[in-house]
């Protein structure tokens, strides 16, 4: 992760140098190589952690530090993978924009912030990297500032997300007041055995509200349907696939470690919120005409599934949730990158104008169809396995009513995904979609990689489920 931070700083220097020599591709390739180096270090880290157990890269007195266990490595693998593919995609997608040196800086900074959040062993380290991640994402959403829409979306997103961050800070201050430390291990040890009093419940509320703004829990989700369509497509893929998952990760980590003593309280609350999130996400998605807005609402619904799996509070539920985090990142990345390919070639996001684009962009449409089938939980692909695991865990834990509600939601979501496939693939082309040509090859490569991953995980989910299980065990054992 240190490599990522170093690259983040040196990218604009290289970008300025490259501009002087009129060879712009150097800075893109530099950013991509930075991400690849990080991926290599991450793989080494994974081997280390799975062999030796959780690492704390601490000098002994300095415990405000990073603590890297399997849960963190699991999330970091997802982020770096999606980040690398989004960076490769944005080489061609962003070619008509200016300010690309800063774009890559902010992109690397956002991924660095996300990795810092999942590797944090201390609440304050988490907050530092949370702020880094949030700041870079504000500017990335408002990247195309010449149009009014990204600015409006960026402003709404900034206000809500900064308010969430301030709420997290207030919760941190109460925890500090109760125990005198902010280290996760110490917090868990001291607060695990205390009798719950009213201030603990207040802190719990503040934590759920604060992290819930980022994780798109329903009363606080209103920034998401505006921000995700207006961001450039690779940033949308990263926002949907990684940023909201980071909110879910932080919620899971803090609730499991710090609030173990009030488990019954947050379990039922989260379950109610999760069901509400699922319903509102799916119902609003049925009404949308804009392809990226539809995908944004479906992100809200999928986060509902993930939170539902987590709130069952059993190892199987948590495994299902984590596996679904990985699957959702891959599939949503795939869907947003395909939608971006359509926007890049045709220039519109309206579903009515994009009908029948399969005639002219066959490969992209088929990949979009694969992604939509995967996320609608149709058997051979990976979405089915993770949602099945969550429902199974719910039934085993005895929550039959809620599991039934989740199955109803999955069926609702199949409706609009099938409508998406029908519109893109099976209808007659409109005059606008007649003018499309196939997406350029370097944009197609990441999409093909993601689709291949969908199919591989779908046909052979064993090792990935084992990875998610190891991550769940690490999360529960701290």
């Amino acid at each position, binding site marked *: 992760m240190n490599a990522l931070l170093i690259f983040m700083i040196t990218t604009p220097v290289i970008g300025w140098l490259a501009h002087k020599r009129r060879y712009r591709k150097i800075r893109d390739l530099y950013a991509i190589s930075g991400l690849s180096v990080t991926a290599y270090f991450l793989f080494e880290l994974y081997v280390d952690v799975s062999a030796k157990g959780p690492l704390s890269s601490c000098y002994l007195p300095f415990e405000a530090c990073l603590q890297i266990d399997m849960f963190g490595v699991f999330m970091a693998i997802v982020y770096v993978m999606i980040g690398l593919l989004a960076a490769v995609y944005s080489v061609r997608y962003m070619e008509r924009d200016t300010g690309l040196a800063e774009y890559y800086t902010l992109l690397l900074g956002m991924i660095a912030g996300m990795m810092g959040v999942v590797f944090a062993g201390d609440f304050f380290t988490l907050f530092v990297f949370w*702020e880094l991640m949030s700041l870079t994402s504000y500017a990335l959403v*408002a990247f195309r500032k010449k149009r009014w829409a990204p600015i409006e979306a960026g402003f709404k997103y900034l*206000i809500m997300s*900064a308010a969430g961050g301030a709420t997290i800070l*207030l919760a941190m*201050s109460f925890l500090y007041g109760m125990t*005198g430390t902010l280290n996760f291990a110490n917090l868990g040890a001291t607060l695990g055995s205390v009798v719950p009093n009213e201030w603990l419940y207040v802190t719990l509320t503040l934590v759920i509200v604060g992290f819930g703004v980022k994780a798109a829990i329903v009363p606080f989700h209103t920034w998401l349907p505006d921000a995700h369509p207006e961001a450039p497509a690779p940033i949308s893929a990263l926002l949907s696939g990684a940023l909201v998952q980071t909110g879910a990760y932080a919620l899971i980590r803090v609730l499991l470690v710090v609030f173990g003593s009030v488990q019954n309280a947050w379990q039922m609350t989260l379950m109610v919120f999760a069901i509400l999130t699922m319903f509102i996400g799916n119902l609003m998605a049925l009404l949308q005409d804009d392809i990226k807005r539809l995908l944004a609402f479906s992100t809200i619904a999928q986060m509902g599934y993930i939170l539902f799996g987590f709130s069952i509070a059993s190892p199987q539920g948590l495994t299902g949730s984590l596996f679904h985090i990985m699957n959702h990142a891959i599939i949503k990345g795939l869907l947003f990158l395909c939608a971006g390919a359509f926007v890049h070639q045709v220039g519109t996001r309206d579903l009515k104008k994009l009908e029948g684009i399969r005639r002219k962009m066959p490969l992209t449409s088929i990949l979009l169809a694969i992604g939509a089938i995967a996320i609608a939980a149709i058997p051979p692909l990976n979405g089915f396995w993770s949602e099945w695991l969550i429902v199974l865990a719910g039934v085993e834990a005895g929550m039959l009513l809620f599991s039934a509600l989740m199955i109803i939601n999955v069926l609702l979501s199949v409706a609009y995904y099938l409508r998406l496939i029908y519109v893109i693939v099976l209808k007659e082309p409109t005059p606008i979609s007649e003018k499309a040509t196939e997406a350029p090859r370097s944009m197609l490569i990441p999409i093909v990689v993601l689709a291949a991953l969908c199919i591989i995980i779908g046909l052979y989910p064993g090792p990935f489920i084992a990875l998610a299980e190891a991550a769940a065990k690490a999360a529960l054992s701290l």
Partner: protein
Amino acid sequence: MIPLSYYLACSIALYTIGMYCLAIKRNMIRLVLGIEILINAAHLNFIAFSAHLNQGYIDPLGSSIVIMSIVFAGCVTAVALTIVTYAYKHYGTLDVRKLRRLKG
């Protein structure tokens, strides 16, 4: 020494005022100030707790956290104000209720 509960009451009152500001005010710059108020409520809390740990001694962890967090609040305000600048260029007004073109 002023009892701790007065500091807590003050910081919770600040938090409420910040939330009211975010919910009710129409001027975009006032919204940004509301966020600053929210963050400062948490800062007051940190300092109050670090002073009441032992009498006559201040726990440095609270102070170092607050120093860093003031910097982050400043960064957020900077980015927010640049976005407000462009919002003014596009919409011609600082009224946040006019930013309603994205619907649904």
